């Protein structure tokens, strides 16, 4: 009887488990298990593998293998790489998950009466307890110290994975977090791996500590993952398609997915899964098979912001107007279409004689329609225009008029609006259109990501470096600490710090950010807004034309021609 009962429980468990498997998203269900399935560059995997091997070794270098920071865009395979290596090398992954042991009442809800601060404090307490406990992991399983440090029993190795980080934007939490990590690195041999994903189009890598400098006193190593290359992505998707039995998704649809996700494999598999649903359902709805599946794709997979931003910039910067000749490569049909569109556009009302030089043909772009159809805020819009306008101007006058308009809007909006200047978007769009030549000369323009983001990031890092130097100074001579204000450190200490670098007592790493002023050329540093922002996004609504530079998803961008027919 007992046996029977056990058996029943077992069956229940099995059914529950099977159901849970069914309910999983494909990204989880078909997660890679071996290196073969892992769509990450071999070299990157090898880098991480070597780091881990060194960390688990008994060699002196293991002391410098306590903290690894994996950065990169989302869906680049950071966590997956770690999981695969854990299977391959046989170490366990201890992951910190926030809100794990939180005070929950009988219904599973947190006590509402706990204030935010208390909750933070208690969350940090828990984090510290977690780290302390995880730091002793080895000894829990093995009391023999001689054996615990030997590497011939690999199953006993473990790493601590921090991905669901405590809320580090909160200054107090950040400090506690950093010292907790620091303490851990000092006393435990269990390596910590922190995974940080880029935040997005704005390029503000979050405050969490992606910049290596933030961790520098811990000898951390950081590895940056790139967006996944097209070839890798394609074969990974094909494997998932087979495993999931999703033959309804045709090769061309699959290619479409690959092209529209900018190297984000998670987004690609999500798209595959829901395209399969769509394609299946479309069959039963007696609709054309490929048609709807293709249509659904576009909006399920596109990197929303990137695409919208790109369309927006293209529309404004190419400044198409009524009567513009069709592009060279346009087919007859496209040319006729353009004429049809133009014939529906009203002619501009006449402008007074004294404004003669300001007269323009009717724009094919309506600023108001752009405004209501783009979910992009005006400030981001203006940053992108600012970064990209010059190649679209033919003369200095064009540039002058354009930049004059941008700065007019900035100077006359700004702080006086409580929320957002409701005129800004229209003014940026109209003013830019009006300032540009018509037609805009086509010289293979590319779009760049605003440099402002990087500059801001560097400023932030430099400012952190100042704080570290101040801390270092006051550690060494507490009595003089107060004379070294942030300004004084930044402006007066440079030479000394650089000289010290050659001596014995090195100042904190990273002071070069403010103690050394290097001259840099501006625009040369801007990143082609390729991979992430735009990554091979099909631009024309009717007929996607795109250009890929080699297989490696490096520098995919939109050429002027792509925008032509759009």
């Amino acid at each position: 009887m007992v046996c029977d009962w056990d058996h029943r429980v077992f069956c229940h468990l099995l059914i529950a488990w099977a159901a849970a498997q069914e309910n999983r998203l494909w990204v989880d269900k078909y997660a890679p298990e071996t290196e073969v399935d892992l769509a990450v560059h071999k070299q990157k995997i090898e880098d991480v593998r070597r780091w881990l091997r060194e960390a688990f070794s008994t060699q002196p270098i293991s002391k410098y293998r306590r903290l690894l920071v994996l950065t990169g865009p989302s869906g680049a395979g950071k966590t997956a790489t770690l999981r695969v290596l854990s299977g391959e090398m046989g170490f366990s992954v201890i992951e910190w998950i926030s809100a794990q042991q939180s005070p929950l009442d009988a219904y599973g809800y947190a006590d509402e009466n706990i204030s935010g601060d208390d909750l933070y404090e208690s969350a940090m307490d828990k984090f510290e307890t977690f780290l302390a406990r995880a730091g002793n992991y080895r000894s829990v399983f093995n009391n023999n110290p001689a054996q615990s440090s030997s590497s011939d029993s690999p199953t006993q190795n473990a790493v601590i994975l921090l991905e669901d980080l405590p809320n580090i934007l909160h200054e107090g939490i950040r400090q506690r977090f950093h010292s907790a990590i620091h303490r851990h690195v000092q006393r435990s041999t269990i390596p910590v791996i922190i995974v940080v994903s880029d935040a997005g189009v704005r390029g503000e890598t979050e405050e969490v500590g992606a910049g290596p400098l933030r961790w520098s006193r811990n000898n951390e190593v950081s590895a940056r993952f790139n967006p996944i290359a097209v070839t890798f992505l394609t074969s990974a998707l094909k494997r998932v398609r087979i495993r999931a039995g999703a033959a309804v998704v045709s090769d061309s649809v699959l290619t479409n997915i690959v092209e529209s996700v900018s190297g984000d494999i998670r987004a690609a598999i999500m798209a595959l899964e829901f395209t399969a649903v769509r394609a299946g359902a479309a069959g039963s709805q007696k609709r054309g098979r490929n048609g709807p599946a293709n249509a659904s794709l576009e909006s399920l997979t596109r990197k929303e912001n990137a695409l919208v931003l790109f369309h927006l910039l293209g529309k404004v910067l190419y400044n198409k107007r009524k009567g513009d000749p069709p592009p060279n490569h346009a087919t007859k049909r496209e040319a006729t279409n353009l004429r049809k569109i133009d014939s529906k556009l009203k002619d501009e009302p006449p402008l007074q004689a004294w404004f003669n030089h300001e007269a323009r043909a009717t724009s094919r772009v309506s600023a108001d329609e752009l405004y209501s159809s783009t979910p992009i805020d005006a400030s981001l819009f203006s940053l992108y225009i600012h970064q990209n306008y010059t190649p679209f101007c033919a003369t200095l006058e064009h540039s002058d008029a354009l930049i004059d308009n941008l700065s007019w809007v900035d100077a006359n909006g700004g702080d006086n609006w409580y929320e957002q200047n409701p005129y800004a978007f229209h003014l940026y769009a109209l003013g830019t259109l009006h300032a540009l030549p018509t037609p805009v000369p086509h010289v293979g323009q590319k779009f760049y990501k605003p440099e402002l983001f990087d500059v801001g990031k560097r400023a932030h890092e430099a400012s952190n470096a100042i704080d570290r130097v101040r801390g270092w100074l006051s550690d060494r001579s507490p009595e003089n600490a107060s004379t070294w204000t942030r300004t004084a450190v930044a402006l007066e200490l440079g030479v000394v710090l650089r000289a010290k670098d050659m001596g014995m007592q090195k100042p904190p790493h990273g002071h070069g950010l403010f103690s050394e002023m290097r001259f840099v050329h501006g625009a040369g540093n801007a990143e082609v807004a390729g991979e992430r922002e735009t990554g091979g996004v099909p631009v024309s609504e009717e007929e996607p034309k795109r250009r890929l530079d080699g297989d490696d998803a490096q520098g995919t961008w939109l050429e002027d021609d792509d925008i032509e027919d759009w």
Partner: protein
Amino acid sequence: MSTTKEKEIANGNDVPYELPWVEKYRPKLLDDIVGNSDTIDRLKVIAQSGNVPHLIISGMPGIGKTTSIHCLAHQLLGDAYKDAVLELNASDERGVDVVRNKIKGFAQKKVTLPPGRHKIVILDEADSMTAGAQQALRRTMEIYSNTTRFCLACNMSNKIIEPIQSRCAILRYAKLRDEEVLKRLLEICEEEKVQYNDDGLTALIFTAEGDMRQAINNLQSTWSGFGFVSGESVFKVCDQPHPIIIRKMISACAKGDIDGATASLSELWQQGYSAVDIVVTIFRVVKNFDELPEYTKLEFIKEIGFTHMRILEGVGTLIQLSGLMARLCKMGRNPEEFKF
């Protein structure tokens, strides 16, 4: 469908409380949602298959984002909706951990669901969450995705960090077209036996600017306040100057006719409209006014924005607005006239 009781309510005069029409006519099924038909079709397929991905719906206010998510959840979950949906407004950063805890508790809660369905967490106005709060949600979404799926609504999708976008299917709603708003308004007028004229409907559409919620609210207020929906009464209810007067005023400005412009202005001023009301309506008219060439439009909007700012700084006087009229009119006159 409408009982006598409801008809009484519709007439409104002596009934103290009536259900807001935006609630009463909130679509219950995806089929009832107006506009964005391609996108809604996709949601229907998802509803049919049962397997809802994490979703982001973005677009301007009042176009049915929240409603769509509710409809989808209802269609997926049926009677289980009550227990299987958690709605959150996760707007402030300090609340992140509270939110995280709530989600965790909810995700672990045992709920009997139709097979293949998931619990749903609805995060409305998700773009008002700070980047930090969003970071905090990222992993949570992943950890519980077996049992729980997330539906986010937001105005600006570029305020949603990429790691979250990467985990979601993204649907973008366009602003509702005038015909679409009109269609819905007509349905409600029919149902509520509202009396109206074309001018009234046009006014509702003009004032709502593609925001269905506002259009319906204004319809209800006008009907219950005036018992008839005319252009006049709509603009009164919305406390907005009549765009016809504004249009006259702007035409005058474009021709450099300062007398005409100030006459219209005084008319509005005497009717008691505030400087902000007037300047906002001027902008609404100008941005789509096809009598103005591009350059004039651009320069006019600059002046209007500038004046608006002055008004917000506290100087909302008739002189302020007259100054605007003068500056606009000056552009309509030959510069030679100003040389002495």
